[in-house]
Every structure is written in C-alpha cells, then in structure tokens.
C-alpha cells in the first residue's frame, strides 16, 4: 500500500502543479497510515534531488532512453511498473493535458476507479474521497471508490505549492522493461509555445478583458496586457471577447474555456455572465472594472471601479509600477 504521485516533467523540469499534488499526497498517505511515493519518469534522473526536496517518503525513478520524450503509451507502461513496485493503492497526478490522458489510460488499464480533475481530496473512514466539480462547475460531487486501486487527477492550484526542504526520501530505481516495439507513438516535433507569459491555470493573478473593449479591441487588450505585465499576471478573456475575435481561445476563462483559481482576478469590461463566473468564481479576490454600475459582475466582486477601462487600466498600471518599484 502507498500513495503515489507522478511528477510530470517538461522542458523546464518538473511541473510545479505536480508538487501541489505531492504536498496533499503526503497528508493523504498519513491519514491512510502509509507511505508517499513520488515517481519520476524520463530519459535520466537529473531532477531527482529537486523531487526529493519535496519530502516524499520514497522517490522512484523509471529511466530509459525510450522515455526521453513524453509518449503516452510508454509513460503509462512505466507508471504501471512503478505502481506494481510500490504496491500503490492511490495514484495521483496533476490534471494537465498529459496528466489527464495518463491518468485515464492508467485507470482504464487497471480497471481502477478514476476521478478526473478533482478539486479536493480527503480520507474518510480509512477510504479516499475525491471532490469533483462537474456540469462545467455548476455541480459538486464527492467521488467514492469501489476498486482496490484509485486514480485521481487533480486540478492545478487546488492545493498550495509546498516549500521545498531537506531531501530525506529514499531513492529507488525501477526497471522500465521497455523496448521500442512496445511504444506506438513517434514524436515528430515538439515546438515550445512558451512565450514567457504566465499560464492561466498557474497564475496567482489574472487580468481579463471582455466585450467592454469593443470600441478599440487591440488597444483594450494591450492595456490589459500592460497591467498584467506589471503584476506578473496572466491575460484572460471572456467568451464574448474570444468569439468576437479580439483574442485567441487559449485565453478564454469560463464554462467553455479554462477554470481558474487565482488569488486576484481583475475583470475589465466583463459584464459577468453566469458562464464566465463558473470559470473564475473560485478566485480569492475579484476586482471589477466596468462602465455600467449595474453590471452583474459587481455582485460577485470584492472591489469595483465604475469607469472606462481605457482610463482605469493605464492608471492602475502606472500606480502599480510605482508601488512595486518597476
């Protein structure tokens, strides 16, 4: 028995969201009276010390040249080896694009109960319970399991990022037992789309624009981006702004876009349609900037400025530049 977390890696090393999950996994393991195990899969073990510093009881490595770049079938096979070696009964990972497909494949192959994109975890009567947000964030449900192994992918920012400390966990290498013939995927090319901008799902601050920029959309989103830049924030948008072609879909927040949970969400020119609120209602502090004092967004906001975003945004950018010494 053990609680296992797959530590996803990309070009920049381990993905931060994986450590959020590991932090919670240690609590779950303690409540179940068992060990926490972090699993690092890849071409080498370069990041093992970094992973150890997040305090798992055991860090397992599954290393092979065949695992140098991410390929779903190879990674699922490697993870299954680790699950077997550790006798893992709970397998957790961050609900990124890769995490969600790995978790689903693993769950299906093991005929294990799977809770996708969970927002909370707890142990009740010695059993794991996962909380899911379903119907596009309009319904919550507790998921209980009736399978010996339980798989959960966890929505980014559901748990706080733990602080690294002294590395103490034991390192164990597990043989991947892979041959190229086992792996169906060929990776033709990987292009970084990392433009240095903060991603919406990782952001602790988001500045979003909506239909209110229609008078001059390019200028409006430039002002949104300038404030975001000063605050180290990600740029978001309402569906109305995306559908109007003001900004690409990857910025969309809401029911058919991304679900976000920043500490601070600044909504500029967003009226606050219920579909938008479904995606950002979990933000700690919401600031609304809108010309229309009656806009529904003010009912959900902690602070509001009634005014023209073309004036308010530059004033805020200038003010924060001053305050933050930028």
């Amino acid at each position: 028995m053990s609680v296992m977390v797959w530590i996803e890696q990309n070009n920049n090393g381990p993905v931060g969201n994986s450590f959020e999950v590991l932090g919670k996994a240690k609590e779950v393991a303690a409540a179940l009276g068992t060990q926490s195990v972090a699993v690092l899969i890849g071409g080498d073990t370069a990041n093992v010390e970094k992973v150890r510093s997040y305090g798992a009881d055991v860090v397992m490595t599954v290393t092979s040249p065949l695992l140098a770049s991410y390929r779903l079938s190879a990674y699922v096979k490697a993870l299954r080896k680790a699950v077997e070696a550790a006798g893992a009964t709970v397998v957790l990972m961050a609900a990124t694009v890769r995490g969600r497909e790995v978790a689903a494949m693993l769950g299906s192959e093991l005929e294990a109960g799977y809770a996708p994109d969970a927002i909370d975890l707890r142990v009740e009567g010695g059993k794991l319970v996962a909380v899911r947000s379903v119907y596009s964030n309009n319904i919550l449900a507790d998921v209980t399991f009736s399978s010996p192994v339980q798989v959960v992918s966890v929505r980014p920012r559901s748990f706080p990022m733990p602080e690294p400390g002294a590395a103490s966990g034991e390192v164990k290498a597990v043989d991947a037992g892979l041959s190229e013939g086992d792996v169906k995927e060929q990776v033709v090319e990987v292009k970084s789309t990392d433009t240095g901008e903060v991603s919406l799902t990782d952001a602790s601050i988001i500045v979003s624009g909506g239909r209110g920029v229609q008078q001059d959309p390019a200028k409006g989103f430039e002002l949104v981006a300038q404030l975001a830049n000063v605050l180290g924030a990600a740029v978001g948008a309402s569906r109305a702004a995306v559908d109007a072609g003001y900004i690409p879909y990857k910025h969309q927040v809401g029911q058919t876009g991304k679900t976000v949970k920043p500490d601070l969400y600044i909504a500029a020119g967003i009226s606050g349609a219920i579909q938008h609120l479904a995606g950002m209602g979990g933000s700690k502090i919401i600031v609304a900037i809108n010309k229309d004092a009656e806009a529904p967004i003010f009912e959900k906001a902690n602070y509001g400025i009634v005014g023209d975003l073309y004036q308010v945004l530059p004033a805020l950018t200038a003010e924060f530049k001053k305050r933050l010494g930028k």
Partner: protein
Amino acid sequence: MKVAVLVKQTPDTAELPKISADDVRSGKVKATMVINPWDEFAAEEAILLGDRYDVDAVAISMGSPDAVDALKHALAMGIGAAALVDNSGVTGADMWTTAAALAAAVKAEGAELVITGKQSVDDNSGAVYAGVAARLGWPLVSAVSKVVEIAGGRITVERMVEGAQETVSVPLPAVISVGKEINEPRYPSFMGIRKASKANIPATPAASLGVASGSGKTQWTNIRKPEERKTKCVIIDGATVEEKAAKLADALLAEKVI
C-alpha cells in the same frame, strides 16, 4: 477508411447553471439536450477528412433513446450514418463500462479511426475515449488541434499541451480527441436536417455489449450546488481615476494578493 465519431447528448451549455442537484441525483436533467459541443468539432473533423481522404463516417452514441437527437445533429452536419448504444435500464455504470460498450460498437462498425471531443460538458471527464483506446488496444492522442496527414497506415497530428505543440504520429487504428482549435463546426443545412430526420438509426441494447447495472468503480455522493460567492462589493470612489487607482492599490496590497 471508416471513421467513428463518438458523440454524447448533453445539456445545452446555456442551461447548465440552472441544473439542480436533484436533477443530477435522479439522472433526469431538466434542460434542453443537444449534441455535446466538443463533439461537434469531432463530427466536423470527420467531414473535413472526407474531403481529403476516402472516408466513411459513422456517429456512435451511448445514451437513452432520446440521444438519437445528438446523432441526428451529426447526420445533419453531413456524417453518413449513425448508431445508438441504448443504455436505458442500466444504472450505476461508469466511464469504463461506457468505454467497453463503445469500444464494442466501434469494432462492430469496422472503424479504423475514432474521433471525439476532448470532454463532455456534463461529466467533464475526458476519460471515456481513453477507455475506448485501452479496450481496443489502440494508441490515443488527446487534445488534437490539427490532423496533418493520414498515410502509410499512420495518422500524424498536432496537439496542444501546456507550453508546447507536439507533432505525433501513431499507427492506425487509433483514437484521437479534439479541441476547439481544430476547426469551426458547420451549422446543419436545411437539406441535411430533412435527411437526418428521416434517417433510420439502429439501436443496440448496452446490456448486449456487456454493460451491467452497478458495475461502476466509482460512485457520486453528496451531490450539491457549489456555494454561492457571497461578497459585498466595495466601490472605490475618488475625484480622479488616479485617486481611484491609488485606493484600489492600497486595498489589494492590504489583502496581500499582490
């Protein structure tokens, strides 16, 4: 080549906010039901592949007999045929039992490629198609944003992950899930709707494909609405916009969110 498009009938997204916990508990959701919006991208991609390759597309759905409406939408868009896996009377099944039944239906159709939306707007799982791939032993590529090429028994696609765009090639048969970036789904034409309304859609009972009641590995309990955000909005006043900006900065710094 036969392409199977997996579609689900789901509530209209505009009506999702009014769905009650009781609706979900009873399984009788009181909302206008439509084709899952993500699956429209899958249907569109199958039609577009028909313009590039020799493709026969079939839409498959597992659901109640009412789910034929979602299949008819796919037909009206231009998908050639449709099949229903009728799950009436089955309770307590989960994503893997659904996947097993759909995998059997895909096999019965002789499809070599499965295309579906990245997730449904009700269960939000994005897991059933992985189960289909696992049951069939086919490779899976999720979050596909472009089908680059189908040639030499392989399909090459681009897909989006956090911070990168990957180009991946897998042997056929295969399963892909698609996102919003891949295309712009067409509206069904009047002729398409007329043709779809007359279509004969065969239904196979889910039980005959191995779906048994109560065979799920997970259960939903304590189904509830999320707590409403209760805030009292402080409207920042000031003589000038600069003064308002300064007051807001004070407040946000005091909240320790900056």
